[in-house]
């Protein structure tokens, strides 16, 4: 089947009334998750995962994916109106978004960010449509050495790109690997680190850890920083502005910024471990460096808002390519999505598109519709989301704890897993406080079993020689790309240090 017939098959799945309803609920929830400062898509998907339990797998994954890319849209509203990014991926949007709002151009800034997000998201989905099947075909020839290298590439990129202390990033990833080894060894049947507990034989469940680290941990950290005390007092009153809609020149001046942001964002998103935050910051740097008037940046340049917005939305689409075609998530958010896929009995990887075309293409088709819905929501439902921003954090916080606890308990009806979530919340708080990386921990926890299995298989094939990684052309390619990405990451860190 060619791409168009696949897409039509996908659309026929996505436009069923029930899937459309799940899609719409997903983008609404995603927007809401996005506008809560400190909460990113990973937290949103993890916390809301239990509410999909009564659904069919395709509808559930459509809804969870909609939460994922919907949150990218939502985070910008607070960046523009409150100078507080909803998530790290929208930090770059504060640089020029908030100055625009202060100049009485909040309305045009909100509309332009919606258009740029739509453009970036849609370009991203078009590229997924074209590239994901190609990736899936290419990666069918991948063996254990390639899978092991891809896992390591994702983790190392994440550690280098996170910007903090690399040692803390590596420690976080190793803890994730260690937790991933708990349970029965699938090759020999021997129990590992179970301490004779029946609950531990199946391994450490991913959901309580993800909800604890990203839900409770982020929440405690937000309270620690006094977010519940600041409220929404500084919100820009965009309703008092004379002109809500952007002018024609706003579109004309930023059309190439959107395109550059979208393509750059997608390319960065495809690299495991890079992600939307890096994409938006790099897009901002590119726009500033090629502008004829770089002095306007930071003072309300529309290109400085539009480029990063297109980039972070395209990157979130790009991150779906390795997830769908390899089964390797490139970020914490897609790691949680992978866990959701597995929970529903869907194994992403090279064979997914061939074996479950209605699911894979239904998901891709739903992303086109989701971006259209988000464009409309972002322009016409802004008053609704502004009201949500005004809900004080001191009320929102305890409510989030309720949902985290009920959500975790409802998975298996286990109080031990609920305590595990609480413990992960405390650990997540200290990790955030001291600069460790909960994202690296979660990614390593999800990918740990694959890394171990592929390394053991690789060394069995090579009779214990690590030289196999240098003998296979595909492995050499992956090593080359990894080296290039790590070098770029190190240069980026150096640049950041010099700026500081």
């Amino acid at each position, binding site marked *: 089947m060619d791409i168009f017939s696949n897409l039509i098959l996908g659309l026929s799945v996505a436009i069923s009334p029930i899937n459309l309803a799940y899609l719409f609920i997903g983008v609404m929830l995603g927007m809401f998750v996005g506008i809560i400062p400190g909460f990113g898509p990973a937290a949103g998907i993890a916390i809301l995962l*239990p*509410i999909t*339990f*009564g659904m069919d797998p395709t509808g559930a994954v459509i809804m969870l994916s909609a939460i994922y890319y919907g949150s990218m849209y939502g985070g910008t509203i607070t960046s523009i109106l409150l100078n507080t990014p909803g998530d790290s991926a929208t930090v770059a949007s504060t640089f020029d978004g908030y100055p625009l709002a202060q100049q009485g151009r909040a309305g045009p800034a909100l509309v332009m960010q919606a258009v740029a997000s739509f453009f970036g998201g849609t370009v991203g989905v078009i590229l997924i449509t074209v590239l994901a099947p190609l990736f899936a075909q290419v990666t069918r020839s991948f063996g254990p050495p390639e899978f092991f290298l891809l896992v390591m590439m994702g983790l190392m990129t994440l550690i280098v790109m996170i910007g903090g202390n690399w*040692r*803390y990033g*590596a*420690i976080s990833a*190793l*803890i994730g*690997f*260690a937790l991933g*080894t708990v349970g029965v*060894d699938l*090759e*020999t049947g*021997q129990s*590992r*680190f179970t301490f004779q507990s029946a609950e531990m034989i199946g391994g450490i469940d991913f959901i309580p850890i993800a909800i604890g680290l990203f839900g*409770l941990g982020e*929440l*405690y*950290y937000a*309270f*620690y*920083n*006094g977010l*519940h*005390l600041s409220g929404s007092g500084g919100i820009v009153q965009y309703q008092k502005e004379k002109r809500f809609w952007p002018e024609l020149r706003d579109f004309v001046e930023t059309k190439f910024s959107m395109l550059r942001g979208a393509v750059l964002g997608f390319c960065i998103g495809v690299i495991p471990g890079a992600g939307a935050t890096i994409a938006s910051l790099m897009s901002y740097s590119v726009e500033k460096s090629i502008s004829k008037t770089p002095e306007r940046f930071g003072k309300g340049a529309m290109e400085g808002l539009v480029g990063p917005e297109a980039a972070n939305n395209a990157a979130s689409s790009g991150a779906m390519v390795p997830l769908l075609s390899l089964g390797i998530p490139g970020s914490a958010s897609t790691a949680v999505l992978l866990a959701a896929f597995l929970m529903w009995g869907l194994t992403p990887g090279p064979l997914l598109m061939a074996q479950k075309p209605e699911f894979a293409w239904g998901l891709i088709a739903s992303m086109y519709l989701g971006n259209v819905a988000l464009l409309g929501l972002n322009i016409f439902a802004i008053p609704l989301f502004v009201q949500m921003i005004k809900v*004080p954090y*001191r*009320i929102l*916080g*305890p*409510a989030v*704890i*309720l*949902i985290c*606890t*009920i959500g975790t*308990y*409802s*998975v*298996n*009806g286990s*109080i031990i897993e*609920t*305590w595990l979530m*609480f413990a992960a*919340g*405390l650990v997540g*708080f*200290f990790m955030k406080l*001291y600069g460790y990386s909960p994202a690296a921990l979660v990614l390593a926890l999800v990918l740990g079993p694959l*890394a*171990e299995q592929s*390394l*053991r298989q690789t*060394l*069995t094939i090579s009779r214990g020689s690590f030289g196999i990684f240098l003998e296979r052309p595909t492995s050499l390619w992956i090593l080359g790309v990894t080296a290039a990405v790590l070098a770029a990451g190190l240069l980026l860190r150096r640049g950041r240090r010099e700026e500081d």
Partner: protein
Amino acid sequence: MQTTNCPGGVSAGGAMRAGFILAILFFAAYYTYIAFAELNYLSSAGRLGPGFFPRIIGVSLVALCALSLYIDLKHLPAAEAVAPAWRSAAVLALLSGVFIALFEPLGGLASMIVFMAAALWILNPGRALQNALIAVLLPLGIYLVFQLWLNAAMPRGMFPLPF
């Protein structure tokens, strides 16, 4: 953020930072001990066994934690920033723990109402009516969604509800 000054010594924040990595180091050491003591490097078939990967992870983790602890202790700031709102975070964490402890004995709905009432009484003082309404209506809404709509597992507690 406020800064706590501890002339001539290590601040509470700095000690906690070192304590956190020390805790990870203990975890890593125990993990590595089990990997070496209880798990075989090779399986009975002569292939790489269940201890192979944990040994690599354990040794790497111990080495990295020890290195980090050494470097951190060397460069530990005499004064580390401590956020003024740390008490709110601690209270919220404590309340979360009490909530989970009461979750099964009291049942889902009752424990949620108790938790919300306590949390709002402390974090949102002076708004008794608003707090009371939120403390009852929000848990009720969540309970109805999870119990009736999603048919999710929910503890019934000592006083089971008729619905």
